[in-house]
């Protein structure tokens, strides 16, 4: 006041710095200004304190104070033996821990599960930390190499051939089914009179297509037979496949001019495949097979949720783009697909995939039960993701696409370099929401006789050795904590990613 009022003023003593009044900062200040600053807030503070008192305290009491920590069977967790009211019965968890993690996976083979978990963590963690280098190598190892290695580690079994055999088998199978359909139509045409000639004509066409396919496939099938006849069929096949694919890559990427780098990366990839085959002995039958019916516990939960999450993204993006396509057929297909999968409960999907699909498939064609559940959840989650991604696509102004087109970028490049990166950033919360929902929805697979974490837990309730009044609560509290740890981790990481990727929105 004085400074302003006086026309000429020169400060003689500088005002020293003082701490702020106690009442406005620190704990006291917080209590005064945030908790007790009005009658309504005082009431709310009291209610909040009561709520904490009545929920957190009993929970801690149950989990820690009254809990029983040691024991070998149910007797330790009974009130008359413990001498006090019994809370959580932790010995029960430690007794059932292996079952919760591995299900009925054979004891001797559990190192394979551990190794898979370890590999997955080792590849995933550096992928999640933005500062670490070699992201594209890391990503391709995690998304392409790891699933294959994990498959052979967890399920076991080996290879009898490689690319040449697979392609040849596929083509000859296709040729056979065309020829078979042609034969059936010709026979049907001979027996019926009205549309007989028509059926006969179609039959002839199908038979011709079958012959054409087998003719085209002839070099491949003969190559397959040659490699299978050799002493090391897998290695021979791998060598031929590597040579053919690398030559193709070299040619397609511009040959002598610019094809060297792709050629080298292709050869390195095949060398990596060879190392995996050699290390795991896939050419000699690989590890002993463990049927997926024996898998269980956290293993199944993680397999289904990781595969579901990873597979649902490309499905969702493809469907979202399809739904906005200007080509009517693609758009209608996408809409129908999304609406169908969103309109059906996941339980129905799983039930259908497990018990009804085999009725429609040809007799000798079976799909593993776990794989059926995987496909079901992936498609189901994909339909949900599609709508989330579409929401992000809607938020991108038309000018972005126009500017990219005006620079000469094709539709694909515009979509994958300009539109999608922005759209996905907008919908990170929605995407992670779906991931978390999917992670917890995996517990529904227990209705199709797969024992995930929760299913294994419930199965262990029936053990009479551990039947105590608090077994049920202990079990659910423990699985709840595991689910929470994973979901909370995903949630926090998504916040971190959001902050990092939205650097451009901070001004």
């Amino acid at each position, binding site marked *: 006041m004085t400074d302003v009022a006086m026309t000429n003023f020169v400060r003689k003593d500088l005002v020293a710095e003082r701490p702020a009044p106690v009442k406005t900062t620190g704990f006291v200040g917080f209590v005064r200004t945030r908790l007790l600053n009005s009658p309504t807030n005082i009431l709310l503070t009291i209610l909040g304190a009561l709520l904490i008192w009545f929920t957190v305290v009993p929970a801690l009491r149950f989990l820690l104070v009254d809990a029983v920590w040691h024991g070998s069977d149910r007797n330790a967790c009974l009130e008359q033996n413990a001498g006090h009211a019994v809370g959580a019965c932790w010995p029960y968890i430690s007794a059932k821990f292996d079952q919760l993690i591995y299900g009925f996976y054979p004891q001797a083979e559990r190192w394979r599960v551990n190794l898979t978990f370890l590999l997955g963590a080792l590849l995933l963690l550096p992928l999640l930390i933005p500062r670490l280098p070699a992201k594209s190598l890391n990503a391709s190892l995690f998304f392409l190499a790891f699933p294959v290695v994990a498959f052979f580690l967890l399920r076991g079994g080996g290879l009898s051939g490689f690319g040449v055999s697979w392609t040849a088998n596929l083509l000859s199978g296709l040729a056979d089914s065309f020829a078979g359909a042609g034969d059936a139509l010709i026979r049907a045409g001979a027996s019926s009179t009205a549309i007989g000639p028509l059926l006969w004509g179609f039959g002839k066409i199908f038979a011709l297509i079958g012959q054409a396919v087998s003719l085209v496939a002839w070099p491949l099938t003969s190559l397959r037979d040659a490699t299978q006849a050799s002493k090391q069929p897998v290695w021979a096949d791998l060598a031929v496949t590597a040579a053919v694919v690398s030559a193709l890559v070299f040619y397609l990427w511009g040959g002598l001019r610019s094809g060297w780098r792709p050629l080298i990366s292709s050869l390195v990839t095949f060398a990596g495949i060879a190392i995996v085959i050699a290390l795991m002995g896939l050419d000699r039958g690989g590890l002993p097979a463990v049927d997926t019916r024996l898998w269980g516990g956290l293993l199944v939960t993680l397999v289904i949720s990781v595969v579901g999450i990873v597979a649902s993204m490309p499905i969702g993006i493809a469907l979202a783009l399809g739904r906005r396509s200007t080509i009517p057929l693609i758009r209608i297909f996408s809409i129908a697909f999304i609406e169908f999968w969103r309109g059906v409960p996941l339980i129905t999907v799983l039930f259908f995939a497990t018990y009804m699909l085999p009725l429609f498939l040809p007799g000798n064609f079976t799909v593993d039960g776990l794989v059926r559940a995987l496909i079901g959840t992936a498609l189901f989650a994909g339909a949900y993701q599609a709508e989330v991604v579409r929401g992000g696509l809607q938020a991108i102004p038309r000018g972005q696409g126009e500017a990219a087109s005006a620079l000469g*970028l094709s539709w694909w490049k515009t979509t994958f370099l300009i539109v999608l990166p922005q759209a996905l950033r907008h919908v990170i919360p929605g995407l992670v929401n779906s991931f978390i929902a999917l992670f917890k929805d995996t517990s529904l697979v227990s209705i199709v006789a797969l024992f995930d974490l929760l299913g294994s837990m419930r199965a262990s309730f029936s053990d009479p050795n551990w039947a105590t009044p608090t077994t049920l609560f202990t079990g659910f509290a423990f699985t709840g904590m595991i689910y929470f740890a994973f979901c909370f981790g995903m949630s926090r990481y998504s916040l971190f990613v959001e902050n990092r990727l939205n650097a*451009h929105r901070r001004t």
Partner: protein
Amino acid sequence: MAENSIVSISHLNKWYGDFHVLRDIDLAVGKGERIVICGPSGSGKSTLIRCINALEEFQEGEIVVDGIDLGPNLRRVDEVRRDVGMVFQSFNLFPHLTVLENCTLAPIWVRNIPQKDAEATAMKYLERVKIPHQASKYPGQMSGGQQQRVAIARALSMNPKVMLFDEPTSALDPEMVKEVLDTMVDLAKDGMTMLVVTHEMGFAREVSNRVVFMDAGQIIESNTPQEFFANPQHARTKLFLSQILR
């Protein structure tokens, strides 16, 4: 003019549904020519220049850009777009990329230029629009005038033969208009072929070789700027000029 023209438009007709937006447009743009297109809003100026790089399709007529016929089926649109740069009213920079990445994206992904070379070229053009020191910023951190200059640098980084400007200063504050116009004047002095939709009559008078006046989807009058401003022929032109040059 027609034999060395870089853009030639003949009998161009376009409809939005039943609405006839462009009517029998004939326009030839010579190499190095600067044409300003003006006219009241809704007269089809923007639609016309958006047809030149096929952001709009048209139903009748012919557009030839640097010898490439952009027929109604738009088959060779990508070839044309590579050689035609465009600057938009609302900048349309890519907000998730830095300024430098905005300028190198198309050279790298469309022209397959190595990243180092693309960055060198981009820096050259960023220097030319006088914002090289902001190359690592995101567009959202810059003023409108700076963003528009980045947009010009982005278009130039593709080494286009023609530059289209769709009301480049209409979304800017008055004091930022000048910095963008100065950049455009520099560009014109270097001999770039330019088609500019604008209401900046000072720019038209100073820089353009020809002013084209459009109304109701047709070209009403086309003349040198001296004649156009001193001696407008058509009644509609006179009315328009009297309204904007007070």
